[in-house]
């Protein structure tokens, strides 16, 4: 048993994420109904055998919608993290490598963005774009990229100043080699952790913005579904309940995974600490 590499948190996280990914991938086959099909004489029905999660105010099957919404959320999350990762890592590394005034300018630029509470700026950007998925992805990427820039910049700076880089250079090592052999290993673990936790945060933020009507509006999305269900809180609470549960499960999965990864990469042995001297 590879006890060292896996721990309980990671396992729970992977199971939860795996389940959601599976549901997302198989949604077209698993969903009992067409998520967009309206049915005005089946509105706001409580969960039943025909409609396991009930129906919403337009008679649509909530289970089907929830399953399709999983695809949307994972897509948005993946896109934002992907864009932020690439843009952030590139900008951060180059800035640190270049050093000097370039570095200073970039850092001031980053600080400028970080001066805003993330929700406000994401809201503004998504709003300006008018409330569609593209705008949402752009808005969230603008907020997320800074974390990657910071991490990669930190790693590059740390390595840049080390002696063995000077030695490596003297022995003829050039930038790509240094990048691959010295910087990459240092960088992978923190980037992995923030990507995982970031995924959870992005999904939450996307749901929040969609809830406000500034995110996805054409396809089912969990946050947007909660918003739709809000008018029927008293009469049909199931409408807003189920999408929310799925958000919790998905984000919890990513948080467990990230937490577990963080424990591995930053080992502070909890159960076995003894001091010997």
């Amino acid at each position, binding site marked *: 048993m590879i006890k060292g590499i896996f721990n309980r948190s990671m396992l729970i996280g992977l199971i939860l994420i795996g389940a959601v990914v599976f549901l997302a991938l198989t949604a077209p086959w698993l969903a009992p109904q067409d998520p967009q099909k309206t049915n005005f004489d089946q509105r706001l029905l409580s969960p039943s055998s025909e409609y396991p999660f009930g129906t919403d105010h337009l008679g649509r099957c909530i289970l089907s919608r929830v399953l399709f919404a999983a695809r949307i959320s994972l897509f948005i999350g993946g896109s934002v993290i992907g864009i932020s990762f690439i843009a952030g890592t590139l900008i951060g590394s180059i800035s640190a490598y270049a050093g000097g005034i370039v570095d200073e300018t970039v850092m001031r630029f980053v600080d400028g963005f970080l001066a805003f509470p993330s929700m406000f700026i994401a809201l503004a950007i998504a709003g300006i774009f008018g409330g569609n998925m593209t705008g949402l992805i752009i808005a969230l990427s603008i907020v997320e990229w800074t974390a990657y820039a910071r991490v990669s910049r930190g790693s590059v700076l740390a390595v840049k100043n080390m002696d063995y880089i000077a030695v490596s250079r003297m022995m003829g090592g050039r930038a790509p080699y240094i990048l691959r052999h010295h910087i990459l290993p240092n960088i992978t673990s923190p980037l992995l952790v923030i990507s995982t936790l970031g995924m959870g945060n992005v999904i939450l933020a996307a749901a929040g913005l969609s809830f406000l009507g500034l995110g996805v509006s054409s396809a089912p999305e969990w946050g947007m579904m909660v918003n739709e269900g809000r008018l029927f809180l008293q009469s049909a609470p199931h409408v807003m309940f189920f999408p929310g549960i799925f958000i919790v499960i998905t984000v919890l999965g990513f948080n467990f995974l990230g937490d577990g990864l963080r424990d591995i990469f930053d080992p502070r042995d909890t159960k*076995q*600490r*003894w*001091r*010997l*001297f």
Partner: protein
Amino acid sequence: MLSIRDLKVAFESPQGPITPVDSVDMDILDKETFTIIGESGCGKSLLANSLLGLLPRDAKVCGKVHMDGKEILSLKEKEWRKIRGNKIGLVFQNPSASLNPVFTMHNQLYETLKYSNKPSSRDKMVSLLKKTGIKNPLRRLSQYPHQLSGGMKQRFAIALGIATDPEILIADEPTNGLDVTVKLKIVEMLSKLHAERSILLITHDLNVASNLSDKIAVMYAGELVEIAPAKSFFEKPIHPYSSQLLASHPEKEMIPIPGFTPQLTQRPHGCRFHPRCALACRKCKTEHPQLEKIEEERYVRCFACA
């Protein structure tokens, strides 16, 4: 006054149980300065901590320690508090770590005195500081640890140790990391305390040991391998490790001891020192020697020498 019998401290590790302190027997008399010499990692500090019941939660302790006739290892937490500070005091290695950085020296000294029900007046504190050689005591009291020099911090740590007037003061590496001149002054100060109480000194500095000790015990790989009165020890060490230790000193021939100190999980069979011993014979490889009395007040753990 303090008698230790068969003291063992063990932990569970992924590689099995380990015993950093393994069957230690020794006695400390009233007003005697007893020094334990050993390299880092031989278990000295754990031994010191165990005498105050300060071992980590997962440590297993066995053996008996009698202080003034009373057994203390089996005490409950509440009773330990009466011993700590009051009967046995402990001065830690590295006072930079053992002084709380967010409280003033006055605060820390005052609470030490107060909670042991000792007089805590300003005059009392000043005289205590003077005793440990701190000049400008009033000014120093209002300062924080990071504002003091290394030597000053050490003096404070010792002052905190004797503030509660314990019968035994354990000083764990009191001169570690200090400049030579400061070291001498600390040794001078400690020797003045010698007359008032017993001191259990732990050090790997042979100069300090020779200046302060009445008795020496040498620790290797968790065991005591030699116990002797200081004078006869430094004149003629008996255990091979002891003699090689002295020979490796810069002021003597500076011959390093071949090999490395064994890891806790990889202790040699038989005599633990045999891989590095010039006098080792076949018996040393297979049988584990016990501590034997050779002369009056001299004990050695060695087949070749006993």
